[in-house]
């Protein structure tokens, strides 16, 4: 089987088409893992390896206790051009969504939700209005004006009563349903009401402009991971994974399940999708708690290959093309960051850190080279050569603000890359409560 040739160009064209449709710029890091396919690959070029601190944003001194699944920052920041001003959006455990000027690091506005914001926000321009979407543990999905922070709409996925608990939400994405922008998001709600208890992982598709529900579908009794979106044979398809080990392909227009596959372990990883229209090839990549990296045929759900690593893969695989070869990057709890050949599933290289990795990779360029950014629980942010895995640099960041976290309960934040003015920037929301911005050039 071949996934070669014009893979990068096709992916870029596809993302470009989506970006044009939703008013995104090519160098926006729109949401979790950059784009709706979760490629993690930004067309951002760092001129050299002299990456320096640009600013640090540390908004709170509050240190609450760690609770199961808590994250300090949202799973990733989003970087976007809002009316000519580069902005960074990130949620924090103190229930605030912050909008920060990407050049100065000054706060532009903040919005207080009813609970912590663990999942990544998503930026899109809908009806000519720059909008940032996010979901919160308060069981609601919000749309805010990205320039002012004014609430455009909010949608409550479950009405409050004394028996409901904090929701576990996925990162939302803006997709296209019957030609109009729609917001796709997974929300897990739990009610422990004696006569009416339920645990519900529900997939919501809302009208992105007005916040009305188009449809929803209960997929699991466990939380859902972040949805990916792609056109497969000209059909809009949403791919979702649930923690009970299932991967779903859902017709985005009708909400019908196209295929479903059950893996042998819990899934905390979100799917990432690669489509090569020239070759008629579409692949879905996802990691499992059993330590398997799966490559599935995105059309049929059949397993193309699996690669076993030493421990769980909770990170979402990132995808890029180097010299016509499609490469997948994934970090594991066995402390390694792996690069696999997307064709064969063979390991290309691995780089060992000093602790386990749950964050996903961000891909950028340095001159002609592909570079990969990844954070490990050894408190270091690494920059690796994407082709051979050699270390370019590493920087030591702070320790977790809480005294302890249970291994595997939280998927820690991932880096994001974008541009701010004439600078290429790297944004990393760290669990030491600081949001770091680095730049080169």
């Amino acid at each position, binding site marked *: 089987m071949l996934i070669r040739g014009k893979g990068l160009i096709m992916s870029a064209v596809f993302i470009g088409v989506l970006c044009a449709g939703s008013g995104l710029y090519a160098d926006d890091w729109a949401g979790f893992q950059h784009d709706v396919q979760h490629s993690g690959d930004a067309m951002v070029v760092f001129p050299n390896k002299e990456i320096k601190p640009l600013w640090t944003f540390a908004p709170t001194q509050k240190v609450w206790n760690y609770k199961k699944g808590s994250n300090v920052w949202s799973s990733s920041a989003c970087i976007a051009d809002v009316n000519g001003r580069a902005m960074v959006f990130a949620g924090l455990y103190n229930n605030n969504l912050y909008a920060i000027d990407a050049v100065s690091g000054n706060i532009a506005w903040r919005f207080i939700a009813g609970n912590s914001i663990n999942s990544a926000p998503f930026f899109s321009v809908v009806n000519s209005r720059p909008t940032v979407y996010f979901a919160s543990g308060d069981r609601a999905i919000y749309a805010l004006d990205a320039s002012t922070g004014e609430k455009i709409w909010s949608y409550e996925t479950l009405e409050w009563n004394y028996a409901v608990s904090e929701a576990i939400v996925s990162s939302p994405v803006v997709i296209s349903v019957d030609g109009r922008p729609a917001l796709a998001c997974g929300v897990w709600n739990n009610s422990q009401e004696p006569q009416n208890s339920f645990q519900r992982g529900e997939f919501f598709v809302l009208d992105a402009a007005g916040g009305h529900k188009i449809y929803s579908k209960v997929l699991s009794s*466990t939380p859902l991971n972040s949805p990916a979106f792609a056109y497969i044979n000209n059909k809009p398809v949403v791919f979702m994974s649930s923690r009970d080990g299932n991967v779903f392909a859902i017709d985005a227009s009708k909400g019908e399940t196209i295929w479903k596959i059950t893996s042998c372990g819990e899934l905390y990883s979100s799917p990432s999708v690669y489509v090569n229209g020239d070759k008629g090839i579409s692949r879905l990549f996802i990691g499992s708690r059993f330590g398997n990296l799966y490559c599935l045929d995105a059309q049929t759900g059949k397993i193309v290959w699996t690669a076993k690593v030493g421990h769980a893969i909770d990170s979402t695989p990132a995808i890029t093309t180097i010299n016509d070869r499609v490469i997948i990057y994934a970090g594991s709890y066995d402390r390694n960051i792996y690069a696999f050949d997307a064709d064969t599933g063979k390991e290309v290289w691995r780089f060992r850190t000093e602790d386990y990795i749950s964050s996903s990779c961000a891909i950028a360029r340095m001159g002609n080279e592909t570079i990969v950014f990844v954070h490990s629980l050894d408190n270091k942010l690494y920059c690796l050569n994407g082709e051979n895995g050699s270390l370019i640099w590493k920087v030591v960041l702070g320790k977790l603000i809480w005294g302890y976290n249970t291994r595997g309960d939280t998927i820690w934040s991932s880096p994001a890359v974008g541009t701010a003015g004439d600078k290429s920037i790297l944004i990393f929301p760290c669990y030491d409560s600081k949001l770091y911005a680095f730049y080169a050039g």
Partner: protein
Amino acid sequence: MFEHLKWKLVERPLLPIGNSYVDAFPFLVLFLLLFISGYALKSKSRNKFRPFAQLAAFIFFIFVVHRCFCAMRGWLFAVQEIGRNDLAVFDGLFVFVPLIAFTILFGRVFCAWICPLGSTQELFYRAPLLKRFVINFSMPARRVKFLYLLLILTLVLFLLFILRPGTYFFAENVAAFWGIAAVLAVLALLFKPAMDAGLKRIRYFSLGIIAVIVALGVFITDPWCAFFKNEVDYSSLLAFFAVFSAAAVVSMAWCRYLCPMGAFLGIAVKASRAKIKRDIAHKLSDEACRNICYVEALKKDSLDESACLYCGRCVDAGASKIEEG
């Protein structure tokens, strides 16, 4: 270097519950093995049945079943998830419920008939050449054992320092520290073999401290996690190495002194209908007792009920009998 090693033959749930990764198959296998083992223990052919049960359990839980056969952590985790995640509750308790039920029905058959870690340690005792070394407590043999254990201890501590398996050094390396504790317990025994009975009480401390650590939400591993889950967990691997090495000096060192699950079942067995009792009419020397019983629960004039693994060897030798209440 072990990252790509895969020994699980099945990589999907064979009997998925609610179309999820949670598999009812290991539950059924455990249920069946406990049932057969319980009945086989009462039969006269128990000695022939037991290796088959051990082998079947070893193959199923190490090579066939894809999931972790979690002992302590899974139980408490499952209790915390009641009302929030029913799948996780089943997943965590599927070992606990049959284990308790069958221990009450048939005695502690899990330890000697099914537990793969017990079977692995027993290999040392069953191998004819090694057995002589394992049960030899003469002064020259003790010196050799002492040096051997010091070497193992140094190696484990060195590897622990090099690998630093967990983010939280003590908490997430509990398994490795437990392995070290097993080596230290055996070293203590070499100094004074009469300490055996006293050292066996450490199991209850081991059970208590692990229960507290897990209840606090700390992620811990056991010496067998790496094998059950097919994963590279250095803490678990180091613990296994230490336990396995200690078992070459004193038979079933882990089961005797540190196994928290064993301690738990040792308490549960007090409510058991089936009990193995010493037949005092059958006279035995200390040497003969040591030759029969892996864990030295069998004494000249008594049988330590909480330490007995229910292998049935003493019943075969006529030194004990099974009584049903």
